[in-house]
C-alpha cells in the first residue's frame, strides 16, 4: 500500500536498489553460494548492464528481484531489495505479486518457451490488463493490439489471434517486450533478451528496447554476457564474478580503462580487427564451483597478477581514483591491485 503512496520520485532514493544480497542453493554438495553480497542500483531512465559469464549469479539476482526464485532449493540469506526505498523481500506475498509485472517486469531470454503455446498472443498480452487492471476481455484485446503496434509488429490487428509458434524469433521477442511494457513498469529486467536471436535481429530488438526505455523513462537492468550488446545501450556496467560484483563503472570508462583484471581479461578476449592473425586471448581456467569458492579473491586462481594477499584476503569494493588522486565518479573495483590494473 505504501508503494502506491510513494509513487512520486523521491530525490536521493534510487528507483531500485539491491543491497548486499546473498542467495544460496541447497545442493548435495552443500550450500552453493550463487550470490555473495551483490549491490547495485538503477534510476529512472538509466540502463545498468550486469555482465558476467554463466553461473556468475547475474540471473539469480534478477530472479530474486522478481521473486520468482525457486524456494527451496534457493534461499535468500541476507540483504535487501529496495524499490523506491521499500524492501521487497519483507513484503507479504500478495503485495509482492502486485508489484510484479506492474512496477517491475521481466523480459525472458527465449521468447518461444516463455510464451504459453496454447494461448494466442493477444490473450497473453491482454492477461496483464486482466490480472492487474481488471479489464474486460474486449478491452484487454484492444490493448493487446495497441501494444503490438507499439513494438512494430506488422498487421497487429490480424495477428493478435495467432499463436506464439506462428511468429518468427524476432517477432516473438517483440511480443515478450510488449508484455513486459504493458503496464508501463518503472523497472524492466531483461535477462539476455537477444541471446536466442539472429545477429541481425539482435540489433533491431536491442534498438527497440532502448527506444522504448527512453520513451517510457524506465530503469532498465540488462543482464548479458555479450560485451557488444552492452556498449551501445548501457549507461553503467556492473561486472559479476562468482556471485560478487568485481567492478562498477560508467560504460565508456570501463571499456577505456578496466580496473579489475577479470574485466580486462573479458575485454581482451573480444575479437578485434587490428589483431587479425594473432591468437585470441582467453582467460585461463574455469569459473569456480559455487560450492567451493576460492578463499580470498574468487578470481585469484585465474589471475595473472595474483599475489599472496589475493589468496587470503577478500578484496573490498574501493572507489577508483585517477592517477592524480581525484576520484572517478561512480567507479569502484574489488581488486587489491586495482591501481596497477587501471594504470598499467
Amino acid at each position, binding site marked *: 500500500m505504501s508503494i502506491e503512496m510513494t509513487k512520486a520520485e523521491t530525490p536521493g532514493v534510487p528507483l531500485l536498489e539491491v543491497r548486499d544480497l546473498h542467495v544460496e542453493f541447497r545442493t548435495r554438495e552443500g550450500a552453493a553460494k550463487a550470490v555473495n553480497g551483490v549491490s547495485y542500483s538503477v534510476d529512472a531512465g538509466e540502463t545498468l548492464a550486469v555482465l558476467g559469464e554463466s553461473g556468475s549469479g547475474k540471473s539469480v539476482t534478477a530472479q530474486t528481484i*522478481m*521473486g*520468482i526464485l525457486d524456494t527451496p532449493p534457493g534461499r535468500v540469506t541476507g540483504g535487501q531489495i529496495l524499490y523506491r526505498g521499500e524492501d521487497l523481500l519483507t513484503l507479504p506475498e500478495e503485495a509482492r*505479486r*502486485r*508489484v*510484479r*509485472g*506492474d512496477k517491475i*517486469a*521481466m523480459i*525472458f531470454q*527465449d521468447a518461444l*518457451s*516463455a*510464451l*504459453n*503455446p*496454447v*494461448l*494466442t498472443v493477444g490473450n497473453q498480452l491482454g*492477461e*496483464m490488463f486482466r*490480472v*492487474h487492471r481488471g479489464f474486460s476481455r474486449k478491452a484487454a484485446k484492444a490493448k493487446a493490439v495497441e501494444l503490438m503496434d507499439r513494438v512494430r509488429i506488422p*498487421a497487429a490487428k*490480424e*495477428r493478435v*489471434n*495467432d*499463436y506464439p*509458434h*506462428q*511468429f*518468427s*524469433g*524476432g*517477432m516473438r521477442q517483440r511480443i515478450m517486450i510488449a*508484455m*513486459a511494457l504493458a503496464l508501463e513498469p518503472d523497472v524492466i529486467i531483461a535477462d539476455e533478451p537477444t541471446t536466442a536471436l*539472429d545477429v*541481425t*535481429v539482435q540489433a533491431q530488438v536491442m534498438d527497440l528496447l532502448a527506444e522504448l526505455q527512453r520513451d517510457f523513462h524506465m530503469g532498465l537492468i540488462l543482464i548479458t554476457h555479450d560485451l557488444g550488446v552492452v556498449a551501445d545501450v548501457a549507461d553503467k556496467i556492473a561486472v559479476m564474478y562468482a556471485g560478487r560484483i568485481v567492478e562498477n563503472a560508467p560504460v565508456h570508462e570501463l571499456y577505456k580503462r578496466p580496473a579489475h583484471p577479470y574485466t580486462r581479461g573479458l575485454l581482451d578476449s573480444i575479437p578485434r580487427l587490428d589483431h587479425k592473425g594473432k591468437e585470441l586471448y582467453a582467460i585461463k581456467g574455469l569459473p569456480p564451483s559455487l560450492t567451493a569458492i576460492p578463499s580470498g579473491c574468487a578470481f585469484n586462481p585465474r589471475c595473472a597478477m595474483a599475489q599472496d594477499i589475493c589468496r587470503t584476503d577478500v578484496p573490498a569494493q574501493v572507489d577508483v581514483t585517477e592517477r592524480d588522486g581525484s576520484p572517478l565518479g561512480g567507479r569502484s573495483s574489488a581488486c587489491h591491485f586495482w591501481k596497477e590494473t587501471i594504470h598499467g
Partner: protein
Amino acid sequence: MPDALEKEAVPTAGGPATVAVVEAGPAPGRARSLWSDAWRDLRRKPTFVIPAFVIALLLVMAAFPGWFTSVSPREADLANNFLREPELTHFFSPEWLGYNQQGQSIYARMIYGTRASIVIGISVTALVLVFGSLVGMLAGYFGGWIDGLLSRVIDIFLGIPFLLGAMVVLVSFDTRTEWTVILALAFLGWTTIARVMRGSVISIKQSDYVVAARSLGAGTWRILLRHVLPNAAAPVIVVAMIALGGYITAEAVLSFLGIGLTEPAISWGGDINRAGGQIRTASFLLLYPSLLLGITILSFLMLGDAVRDALDPKLR
C-alpha cells in the same frame, strides 16, 4: 581481403547463391494450435472416423432407444416366443436376433442395454477426470508435503485391485442402481488419472511460460487454470478415453458376475450372465449382446488410440 569478402557474401561458391531469409517465420495464416492440428490429422484417419461414427450411433441408441425398436425390452411372451431362433433376414424387427428364455426380444434388450453401459462409462470417466485431475494438479504444482501426502493416498488406492475392490464395495449394497456402480468405479479408478496429471503438471510447471506468468504477477489459480492445465491436459485426456472402454468392460463384468446392476435394470453384462446356462442349446443368447459389447469397447479403445497418436508429436 576482397577474397574473404566475396566468400562471405556467397557461401556456396560455384553453386547457386542461396539467399538467407532473415526473420522468415511461419507464414501468417489460419491459427493452428496443438488441438486444431490434431483435429486436421484425425478427421482423415479411418481408425478415428469409424469408431467415432460407432460411438455416435451408440450415444443416439442410449438417448433414444425408442427410435430403434418398437417393442419394450421387458415385454415377455412365453407362449409364442420362448427361446425363438433369430430371423436374420428380418432386419431391425423384434425377432431379428431371437428371443430369450422369458420371451423377450434380444434385439430390444440390446438396444435398451446401451444406456446403462454408456451412462456408466461416461459418468465414471467424467468423475475420475475431474477428481483425479484436481488431485494430480495440486500434488504436481505445489509439491513438498502436499505432494507427499496426496501421492501416498494415490499409492494406497492403487494397491486395491480395481475389479476385486469394486466387488467388495458393491456386494455391500442390496439394490444397485447405475449410480451405485458409477460411484464404486470412480472411487477406485481416479488414481491413474491423478498420476498422469501429476507427472504432466510437474513437467509443465518448470517451463518458462509458467515462470513468466508468475513474474508478470498472475496469481496461483490463474496460473493453474490458464497456463498449466491446458498444457497438461493432452496426455490425461488420452488416458481417460482409453479408460472409458475399461469402465464399460468393468460394468459388464460386474453385471455378469451378478454384482453389477440389479433387476429390473437392463444391462448387456446381465443378459450375457443369464445366457451362460443355455450356451449349448441357444448360443445366440450369448453371441449378440457379447458382440455389441465387444464393438463398443473396441470403438472407445480405438478412438483413444487415434487421439493419442494425433496429440503426440513424437508419434507423428
